[in-house]
């Protein structure tokens, strides 16, 4: 093919890609494409292989290093288990009490979801377009399924390709989580700060709202994706932003650099019929 024809082909390919990109804009940060799912399916097995091999290496190295401290750690863990058992008894008692009170006023609590573990096979949490790929085994992940770690919220599934899934981290600029200040119950929207540092912004909190550094922020359960009460972050700074809203910076509770296993939360999402009846909200 001569250079002239190649030049025309370049223009056609670029225009096609621009149309493809523009078509995604309404759902930016939303659903993935088939092409992306195919790509993910192709490269993820290799990522999983690297993750498994690396885990094997670091695991055996860790075993050797930690053998001496295992006995002491075991004792301290036994003490911790005893303490947690006592706490569990107390919480079960409180839970029963809450159920009884809820039944008395006919309050319908949202169902609590099940969680299942998934391995992180690829994680890029440092570059400006950050992402995470997980392997969920036999049962594939579901679109928009919340992803958690023991410390708090990690993100949500945006592309599913067989047992692999791509996760949008909450620190991604395109991510948005309906959240609330745990102390005052004031709601806002948590977004990735967009910088290279792992930080979050809590937007749309009016100036008259009481928000202080150190406040814990949890999901509010208002976006139809994340259930209420999942820890998101801690308020780091509160500054007067514009004329209406605070500029609130959060520190995420999750250390994204140390994630090697995450949990998929199987909870009942808001039914599609209900979502259709609502004005369009982009999470």
């Amino acid at each position, binding site marked *: 093919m001569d*250079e002239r024809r190649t030049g025309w082909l370049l223009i056609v390919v670029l225009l096609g890609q621009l149309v493809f990109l523009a078509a995604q804009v309404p759902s930016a940060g939303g659903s*993935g494409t088939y092409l992306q799912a195919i790509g993910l399916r*192709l*490269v993820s097995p290799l990522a999983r292989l690297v993750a498994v091999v690396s885990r094997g290496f670091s695991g055996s190295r860790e075993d050797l290093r930690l053998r001496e401290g295992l006995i002491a750690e075991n004792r301290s863990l036994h003490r911790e288990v005893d303490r947690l058992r006592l706490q569990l008894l107390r919480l079960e008692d409180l839970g029963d009490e809450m159920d009884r009170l809820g039944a008395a006023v006919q309050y319908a609590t949202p169902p609590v979801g099940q969680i299942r573990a998934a391995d992180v096979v690829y994680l890029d949490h*440092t570059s400006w377009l950050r992402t995470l790929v997980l392997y969920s085994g036999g049962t594939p992940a579901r679109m928009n399924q919340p992803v958690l770690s023991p410390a708090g919220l990690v993100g949500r599934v945006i592309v599913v390709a067989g047992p692999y899934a791509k996760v949008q981290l909450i620190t991604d600029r395109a991510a948005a989580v309906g959240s609330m200040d745990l102390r005052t119950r004031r709601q806002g929207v948590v977004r990735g700060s967009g910088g290279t540092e792992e930080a979050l912004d809590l937007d749309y909190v009016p100036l008259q709202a009481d928000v202080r550094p150190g406040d814990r922020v949890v999901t509010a359960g208002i976006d139809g994706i994340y259930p209420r009460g999942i820890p998101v972050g801690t308020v780091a700074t509160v500054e007067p932003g514009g004329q209406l809203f605070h500029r609130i910076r959060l520190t995420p509770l999750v250390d994204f650099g140390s994630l090697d296993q995450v949990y998929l939360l199987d909870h009942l999402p808001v039914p599609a019929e209900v979502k259709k009846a609502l004005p369009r909200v982009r999470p």
Partner: protein
Amino acid sequence: MSALKFLLGLAAAVLVQFVGVKLFPDFPRVVDVFLVVVALHAFSGNSLTALLAGLLVGLLEDTLTGGGLYGLYGFADTIIGYSVARLAQRLVIQRATGVLGVISFASLAQQGIVVGLALLLLPSPPLPRPLWVGIKALGCGILGMLLYAGAARWTRTYESRRRGRMSRLRMG
């Protein structure tokens, strides 16, 4: 043969990316192995294959990046592949420092295109820090230069061995 070499290079790039991210979390910020593959392939001067290689590699790279839009790197790498191939048709790049310059500039251009597209298409896009853009461009240039120099050296050694073997055959 060229396609096979390209596919092997691409597979190696994917592997290096996965291992690199596992060992050094900052790896994707410092070097873009996919861009290096596109640029080195485009040095052959065939603008058609360079264009297609850029498209394929870019879309693959898009599966491993976030940001909400799929195809940013596909677009950028298509332009980079084509441009580097056109440049290679006009310039004879033999020195390793020349390769460093071209690939570093290609990386700067690629990051510029991706940022530009993100600014055009996303409401409040994330932006990389200029320092890291520079570091990444330099990282890509150095990696490209090392690979180019290594491949040239290997080809020279292979050729001289082959010539030696041929002359021994003739004498025998």
